[in-house]
């Protein structure tokens, strides 16, 4: 286990700056996630931790030891790659044993460790197989096993679930959480899937263009997004945004908007916080229904109001039809205000 510290790390590839003066501390045994769209620099940060890339400036510390120039093999980190990166010419046994062989582990202990890891991940019957003879889920398990087998100080995962089908992804997500709970190895996880990040992490850093937009617990990030980017990126379906001025006529919202009169604001409301119903209520926002999306548990309704697109949730039994007008009801407490120019959230 180790505490990780980025000390003003800058990384450039040629003229492209991926991270600028990046500062962050990750605690002992924490499950920490870098969340962001592709190209936000999250994989590069992981590569910097692994030692695959060197920072252009700044330092990286594990506990209080500077590891900036250490080779990947000397850092005692293990990594799971998006493509699994199994060794195709080796059997499952040899894939699992590889990191131990590199550390000159005695044969008896090696055998025992492979057997133990294979048992934990349910790979016992597959030890003689080659990676190409395995299913996606099995490959994923081998990749996990190869990383876990030597109890590294830091465990790095780069979008490990993105190549699995939806159902297997949920299964492996639970397994990852279970493994982390059992072993408490400091884990740094990279994903673009906000739901995955929320479900797994102790803390999340939302990244955009190499900058942390917000860093906090999943709860904090969901309940109190720091800015419009975070609010839009976290939460599914994504948050609705409406110009504040257009809403000043609606009584329950007008009160909430009074303190910030005169400022150019954007209002954000999560679709889960909008109730859509057929009966006409004068305190609600009346929008024309353009799309209905039943998902079984929920009925999502996309409406159009004054040229703005708006999504809300209806009871599954609600009688709604495309082309009709319905009420989109939401309270003043459940809206977020953002400054239009800076995107920052205003309390």
């Amino acid at each position: 286990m180790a505490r990780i510290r980025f000390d003003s790390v800058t990384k450039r590839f040629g003229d492209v700056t991926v991270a600028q003066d990046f500062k962050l501390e990750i605690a002992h045994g924490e499950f920490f996630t870098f969340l962001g769209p592709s190209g936000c620099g999250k994989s590069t940060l992981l590569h910097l931790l692994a030692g695959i890339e060197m920072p252009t400036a700044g330092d990286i510390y594990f506990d209080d030891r500077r590891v900036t120039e250490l080779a990947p093999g000397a850092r005692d980190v293990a990594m799971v790659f998006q493509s699994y990166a199994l060794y195709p010419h080796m059997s499952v046994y040899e894939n699992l044993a590889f990191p131990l062989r590199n550390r000159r582990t005695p044969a008896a202990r090696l055998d025992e460790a492979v057997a133990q890891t294979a048992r934990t991940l349910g790979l016992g019957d597959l030890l003689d197989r080659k990676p190409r003879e395995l299913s996606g889920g099995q490959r994923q398990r081998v990749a996990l096993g190869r990383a876990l087998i030597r109890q590294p100080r830091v465990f790095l995962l780069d979008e490990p679930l993105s190549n699995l089908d939806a159902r297997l992804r949920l299964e492996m997500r639970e397994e990852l959480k279970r493994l982390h709970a059992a072993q408490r190895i400091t884990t740094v996880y990279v994903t673009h899937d906000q739901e995955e990040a929320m479900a797994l992490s102790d803390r999340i850093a939302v990244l955009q263009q190499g900058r942390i937009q917000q860093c906090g617990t999943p709860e904090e990030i969901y309940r109190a997004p720091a800015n419009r980017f975070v609010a839009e990126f976290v939460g599914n379906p994504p948050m609705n945004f409406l110009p504040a001025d257009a809403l000043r006529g609606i009584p329950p919202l007008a009160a909430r908007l009074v303190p910030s009169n005169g400022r150019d604001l954007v209002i954000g409301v999560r679709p889960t916080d909008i109730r859509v119903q057929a009966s006409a209520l004068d305190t609600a926002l009346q929008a024309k229904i353009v799309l209905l999306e039943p998902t079984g548990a929920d009925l999502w309704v996309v409406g159009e109001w004054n040229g703005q697109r708006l999504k809300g949730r209806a009871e599954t039994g609600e009688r709604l039809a495309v082309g009709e007008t319905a009420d989109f009801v939401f309270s003043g407490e459940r809206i977020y205000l953002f400054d239009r120019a800076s995107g920052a959230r205003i309390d």
Partner: protein
Amino acid sequence: MSRIGRFTALALVALWSLAPFLWQLITSLKPDPEITALPPLLPAHITLAHYAAIFTGTPFLRLMANSAVVASGTTLLAVALGALAAFALAKLHVRRRTLILALVLAVSMFPPIATVSPLFLVINALGLRDTLIALILTYTGFALPLAIWLLTGFFHKVPDEIYFAARVDGCTPFEAFRRVLLPLSAPGLITTAILVFILSWNEFLYALSFTATAAARTLPVGIALFPGLHEIPWGEIAAACVAATAPVLLLALGFHRRIVEGLTRGAVKG
């Protein structure tokens, strides 16, 4: 296109490529009086006399041994050095990669004839004239660009993540190269080795210029020097050519599948 049409086209191409070789084969089996006569194209009876003659009357076996040493030595050296260079170019952070690859290619652009005299002077000065080492070193120099280019391409096809995984799993760069990159590039290594082998097996100009006696002469030079003062022994030359082609042919056939695999690998995903 119909199957028959395709078959005919392939047969024509094969015939076009193989015709000179078939001509040599036929000549090598014809008795002397028939060689200069045409027709008949095919001999009335077959003789192995020319083959017997090259193995008894000429230093053919010595030439073949020389060629084998030179070609194997060159192949080993060029593939070993080429693989190291290609590894660096394909997987390590080498600055100015493209420039280096272009320069490597530029080296092989020199027409051999332009370099014969300076190389001859160097080899003479080193006291290596009429030795196999002189040929091995020269051929390696000319085979390296080919080896580096081919192998860089093959190593490039091994995903970076697999190399990174090996590094994170505790390998030094060289260990990752030896235990992961090399085994995964086996078809590429074999393809490269065979191409280099053929290149040095067939080379004529340097071999002619840098050797003086049967001590270091290779097959192409040796065969070219068969003609005597008053007559040209066509039958023996043909027999020697066929016999000289045999090892390369066997090598290529033996690794046929591997070569095709190597040349087309990565063309289709999966």
